[in-house]
Each structure stands twice: as structure tokens, then as C-alpha cells.
């Protein structure tokens, strides 16, 4: 019982997939211009990773080693297709905003990483909870970045105006940079900094400096 709960809780901060494991960043950035798309993306990923983890864990003893990667990808791609269809059916306008990024969940490192790294060697229930935990960690980061970008860039949250914009008679002049791609990089960098200052054990070890005169060795 507590093992499952720990599997759920651990990825949210201690092993947050983005800040520590450098995973799943791609789609994290492009959809965070608004909070509603960021939340929808987070929810989609939670669904996919939890269900794919469960499915893969269910058949993990049957799948031969030689084809396991392609089997995982097939299952994940099918689930993503189903989620994409569901989004188009129930959240049409938002899904158009998400454009190709729902499809890119297939290649999201978190999903495949957990499938290979956890679901192939644990039971269905633990894998499902692990999936939800990792998905929540990802969704949390997305929500943070999305909230900052929408609030700072448009003065609103979820479409509701919080900081009245100057062109509507208010006082707030929006920070246009937050609506452009580089801001997402900066925000993630700041977030990583904040998390690692809070949890110093996550700080990376300093890289050994390359020897001054020796030619750089071709390390893979």
C-alpha cells in the first residue's frame, strides 16, 4: 500500500521527470503559452502514461525481448491515437491549439522511459500508479510554466482577465516575451534552479574540465 503511494509521490518533486531526469521537455514548452492548453496536455499525458504502463505491465511476461521496444511503441501510439480522437470529440477548439503536440506524446521520453524502466519489471497496479505519479510531476511543471506565461503575457489565467490590460483601459502592459518561445526555456531554467536550491541533493556534479592540450576523446 505505502509502496504504491510512494511510487506515486516520488516523481512529483524528488524525481520530477523534467528537472531531474531531463525527460519529456519537448512538448512541455510549446503548449505552455496558455494555462488551459498546458493543463489539457498534462491530463493527456497522465492518461497515456498510466494506461500504457498498466497495459505493458499486464503483458510483460509474454513479450519476447527482441520485440519489446516496438511492442511498447505500438501500444503507446495506439493509446495516443485514442486520446487524440477523444480530444477532438470533446474539446475540439483546445485540441486544435494543441496541434501536433498530442501526437508527439508518443515520443515523449517520460512515457517510453517509464514503460521500459518500470512497467516491464513491476506489477500492473504499481505501474499504473507510477504512471500517474510521473504524469502528475510533468503536469505540475507544465501548469507552473503555463500559468506564468499566460498571466505575464496576457494578463489572464484560463481566459479570465486577472491583470487588466492597458489596451482595455487597465494598467498592465503585458510582457510580450513571455508569449514567445525563448521565455519557456528561461522559465524552465529558473524552475530547475529553484528546485535544486530547495533540494541540493539534485545538483549535478561539476564536470571535470577537459585537459588543456589533449585532443578531446571521442566518447559516445
Amino acid at each position, binding site marked *: 500500500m505505502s*509502496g*504504491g503511494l*510512494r*511510487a506515486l509521490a516520488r516523481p512529483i518533486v524528488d524525481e520530477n521527470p523534467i528537472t531531474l531526469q531531463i525527460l519529456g521537455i519537448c512538448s512541455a514548452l510549446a503548449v505552455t503559452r496558455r494555462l488551459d492548453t498546458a493543463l489539457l496536455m498534462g491530463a493527456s499525458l497522465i492518461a497515456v502514461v498510466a494506461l500504457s504502463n498498466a497495459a505493458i505491465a499486464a*503483458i510483460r*511476461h*509474454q*513479450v*519476447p*525481448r*527482441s*520485440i519489446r521496444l516496438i*511492442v511498447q511503441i*505500438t*501500444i503507446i*501510439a*495506439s493509446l495516443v*491515437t*485514442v486520446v487524440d*480522437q*477523444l480530444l*477532438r*470529440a*470533446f474539446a*475540439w*477548439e483546445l485540441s486544435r491549439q494543441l496541434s501536433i503536440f498530442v501526437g508527439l506524446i508518443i515520443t515523449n521520453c517520460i512515457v517510453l522511459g517509464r514503460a521500459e524502466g518500470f512497467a516491464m*519489471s*513491476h*506489477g500492473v*497496479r*504499481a505501474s499504473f500508479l507510477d504512471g500517474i505519479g510521473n504524469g502528475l510531476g510533468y503536469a505540475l511543471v507544465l501548469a507552473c510554466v503555463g500559468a506564468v506565461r499566460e498571466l505575464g*503575457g*496576457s494578463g489572464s489565467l484560463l481566459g479570465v482577465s486577472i491583470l487588466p490590460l492597458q489596451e482595455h483601459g487597465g494598467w498592465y502592459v*503585458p510582457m*510580450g516575451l513571455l*508569449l*514567445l518561445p525563448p521565455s519557456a526555456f528561461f522559465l524552465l531554467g529558473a524552475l530547475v534552479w529553484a528546485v535544486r536550491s530547495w533540494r541540493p541533493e539534485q545538483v549535478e556534479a561539476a564536470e571535470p574540465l577537459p585537459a588543456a592540450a589533449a585532443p578531446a576523446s571521442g566518447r559516445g
Partner: protein
Amino acid sequence: MAAEADRTNPEAPAAEPGAARTLAIAFAVCAGCAALVSASVVLLRPLQLANQRGAREARVRSLVEGVPGLSEWGTGAGGATFELRAVDLATGGYASDADPEALLRGEGEGPPGEALPPDQDPAGVGRVPRSAPVFELRRAGRLHTVILPVHGRGYVSQIRGYLAVAGDGNTIRGITISEHQETPGLGAEIERPEWQQRWQGKRLRDEEDRVRIRVVRDATSADSAEAAFEVQGISGATRTGDGVSELVRFWVGSKGFGPYLARLREGGDR
């Protein structure tokens, strides 16, 4: 299942099965996934089509209601009708073999239409289809307004929108922008009603039938002869404004809806 670790201890991997079993598993996975995907698509398709249509109608309706004198179209009051037709672009007449719903969704035309060489394509339209959808609004049998879907290249993205033209084929009733990825705060202002209202009442062509409508940086004074063809642009967003200008000029020109609008101007009402 054998004694599993429900905790977080990994287990030992299973033994490697033979080729036949591998194939069987692969086939089973494929079949299962195919069933899942196909079932969801079949079940959800009607809902999706309804949504697409609903979103598009809401978009067109908001255009219609935003234009003075058109706000009652939504209710169908006063004998007002709202119809989607397919128009053959080259002749300007109706295309009886094309399905307007499919055209609006961007399908049903077979291979995309002829590609335009860059020097004939200032609007960055790319390919012009043979037929295009139009919305026709009639009141008491007379054509009141037509709504033309338009698109073209803006500063950094494709801009899509709808242009509402009066039944005379020359006066603009309004414009709305449905899709773009222009710079927030600058080019993105084209999606604001305040900017779109500047198009109301402008004319497309002059007495010599030349396309004169365009977006300008400094509009001449309101009472000059030029003013009827000029739309004031957005400062700091010249390129986006130029993009909208070019795409409107393209679609009301001879390669777009020009022939269709010419028929309206001649008074041919069907």
C-alpha cells in the same frame, strides 16, 4: 500471475521464446491495438464532425453578428436564410459536383489544386483549389451578404479568416480572423474586433474594376476619394498588415473569388 513484487523491487526477466511465439505475440498486440483504435474512431467520428461544424458555424455566426445590420441572421427572423454553397472559382458559378461541407473541412477535392508559382502568389496561398465554399445570406429571397473563407501568409504564419461582402459584390461588410500565429501584441492584433471593424464599409474595386482595397500605414483623411479603399494598419505590425492586405486582394481577385463577385456585381442573383 506468479509471486509478483507489488513493491518497487524489479523482477528477473523471463526466458526468451521461439520465433513462432514471437510472431504470435506481435500479431496479437497488433490486432488488439487495431481493434482499440478503430473502435474509438468509429464511435467518436459523429461527435467530432458535429464539433467541427459547430465550431465553424460559431465562428461564422460571430462574424455575422459583429457586422451592423446582420445581427438578426442567427435567429432566422424576417425570412433570413443562411446557406453554404460550393463555387467554381474559375467561372464564378456554382460547382454542382463539389460538396461544400467537405471543402470547408479542407477535404473532398482530391489532390490539392494547381500550385501557384511564387511570382504570381504574393499572398503565399500556395495552391488554389478548383472549387471553394461560400456562405450566402439572403433576406426575402434577395442576396444580402456573402461570406468568403480566405487565407494567406502573414508575417510568420498562415492567416485564415472570413471576409463578408455585401450583395453588390463590392462593399465589405466585415472581416474576421480565425487562425494565425502572428506576434502577440503586434501582428496578433488582427484578431481584435477593434481592428476588424476598420474594414466595414470599405470597397474592394473602383469604377474601373481594379482591385483597390489594401491595408496602409497612414490612411488619407476620411473624406478623400482614397479612403474608401484603405484600411489603417497596426503600427509595429506592418508585415502582418501587408499579409492580410495581400490575401484579401488575392481572394477578391481573378484567381480567387473575383469571377464570383463579378457575377454579383452584374446583378446575377440565383
